[in-house]
């Protein structure tokens, strides 16, 4: 009898008591309990049976939970994959992003706060852990490390005045910032949207993860919107469409005579100069704009690895395996973050509109600045304004556009090497602009 009493007491302590306590004070729990098993069973009729099981299965399928929004996003994902494969528009980015959009928009049963630990926004899921790198801005600096390890700054060192074209194109960021404020976005959101004008995917993700992450609180107590997905998708979409967006603007802004300008071939750059560029570039830019340190620090670190000549293995890893792994992670998770309920909003449409404007303004400003520089430069040292568009980062697509447009005007005038100067200057310029926005709005 006593033994029976002891067993019943132990069973009560072991199984019933914890459940009883949990139901009494769920809010008091200090640690968040992630429920792996369903808390709510859809279609639960109380009588388990074959048909009930089938109905339960049906309730959990994507077919049952699909909404028009999901279907629209899946079509967008398929278009991304199609553009990447058929037209080779930034395939290394659009294939992971497009596939990510498909993954992120598989409809799931989420009624009653159900957490299947599958979706990217469901705490505890694998995708959620991978998304951490986007949310906390881990991936963009790693991408910059790889970019630094594969970038040759020779054209910029041989003709440093091209740096100014990279600065001029960043005006697009700040004009878009004002445009976003006029359309009713708050300051941090507008800052994150403005950075699309920098035409730099990792920078756009880095800034939006800091400023428009759906977590930060404003002074009036409201929370900023989560705009990481729309901003990243807009930035990468327009980067992929650089060969479509920029040429008409370039032709419109330049005369036939200007397009024929031949630039002096860049001089040979010594190894010492190549080593000193990232070191002094890092010190000079980051002392002025410390907010850009995560991006510029990694960019110049990667370049030091490349140019030092004694860390070939590290440079090789940074520009191949590491950047490939991070590109897969960032592309997939950014794509998956575009769930229909988060992405298909009025804000996304406005962001896409502002992004197109930002690209056009940045391209125009780069070309106009090249033209204005020519007013002061002596004959023989003039700049072909067709390289002005390369001031937007989008490495190396915008430089390729300069080359293609230059060849259209004169089949023997190659502008690629010259255009790479403002192109890499644009990367530095957009990172500095990002640092300034962070220091004011972060």
């Amino acid at each position: 009898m006593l033994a029976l009493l002891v067993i019943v007491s132990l069973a009560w302590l072991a199984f019933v008591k914890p459940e009883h306590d949990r139901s009494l004070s769920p809010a008091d729990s200090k640690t968040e309990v992630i429920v792996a098993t369903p808390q709510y069973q859809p279609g639960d009729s109380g009588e388990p049976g074959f048909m009930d099981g089938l109905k339960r299965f049906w309730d959990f399928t994507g077919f049952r939970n699909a909404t028009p929004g999901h279907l629209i996003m899946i079509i967008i994902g398929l278009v991304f994959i199609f553009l990447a494969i058929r037209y080779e528009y930034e395939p290394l980015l659009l294939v992971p992003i497009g596939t990510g959009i498909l993954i992120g928009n598989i409809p799931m049963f989420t009624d009653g706060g159900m957490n299947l630990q599958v979706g990217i926004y469901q705490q505890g899921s694998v995708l959620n852990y991978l998304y951490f790198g986007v949310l906390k801005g881990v991936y963009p600096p790693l991408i910059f490390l790889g970019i630094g390890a594969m970038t040759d700054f020779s054209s910029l060192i041989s003709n440093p005045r091209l740096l100014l074209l990279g600065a001029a194109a960043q005006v697009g960021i700040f004009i878009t910032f004002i445009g976003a404020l006029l359309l009713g976005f708050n300051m941090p959101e507008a800052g994150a949207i403005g950075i699309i004008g920098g035409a730099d995917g990792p920078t756009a993700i880095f800034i939006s993860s800091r400023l428009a992450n759906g977590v930060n609180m404003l002074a009036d107590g409201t929370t900023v919107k989560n705009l990481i997905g729309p901003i990243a998708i807009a930035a990468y979409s327009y980067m992929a469409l650089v060969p479509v967006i920029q040429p008409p603007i370039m032709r419109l802004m330049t005369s036939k005579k200007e397009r024929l300008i031949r630039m002096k071939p860049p001089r040979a750059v010594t190894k010492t100069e190549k080593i000193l560029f990232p070191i002094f570039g890092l010190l000079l830019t980051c002392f002025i704009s410390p907010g850009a340190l995560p991006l510029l620090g990694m960019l110049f670190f990667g370049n030091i690895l490349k140019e030092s000549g004694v860390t070939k293995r590290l440079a090789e890893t940074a520009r191949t395996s590491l950047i490939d792994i991070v590109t897969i992670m960032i592309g997939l998770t950014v794509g998956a973050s575009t769930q229909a309920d988060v992405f298909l909003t009025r804000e996304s449409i406005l962001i896409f509109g502002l992004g197109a404007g930002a690209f056009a303004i940045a391209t125009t400003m780069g070309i106009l600045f090249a033209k204005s520089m020519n007013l002061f430069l002596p004959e023989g040292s003039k700049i072909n304004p067709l390289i002005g568009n390369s001031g937007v980062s989008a490495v190396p697509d915008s430089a390729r556009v300069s080359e293609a447009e230059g060849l259209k005007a004169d089949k023997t005038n190659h502008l690629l090497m010259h255009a790479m100067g403002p192109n890499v200057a644009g990367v530095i310029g957009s990172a500095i602009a990002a640092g300034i926005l962070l220091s004011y709005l972060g």
Partner: protein
Amino acid sequence: MMNQQLLTALASVQLDPMSWTIVAVGIGIVFMSLLLVYFFFRYILTFILNFKLRSFARRKGIDPSEADTARTMMSGEVNAAIAMAIYSYFNELHDVESGVITIKRVSKNYSPWSSKLYNMKNL
């Protein structure tokens, strides 16, 4: 009508003065940072490298002004042409052949294993 409404709405928006500060400071700092890098690499680094080159030329007994001109004026294309010429000189010396053909006799030891005589049926 729709555009007018949008324009009216835009005109009614009062921007925070801070936003103009961000724009002015932002554009200014981006230009200033890149101008600083430009001045450093255009003037200071060039001065340091020229100084180094002149001292090297002085040690070797070369006129420093000539050495300086050679360094700054030489383009990558000239370097590529010189490199190509040197490569061609050292690697394509076999263009002129002697024209003498020699026949080398190869002696082979006899082996019954490969003998035609032993491998054919004598009908």
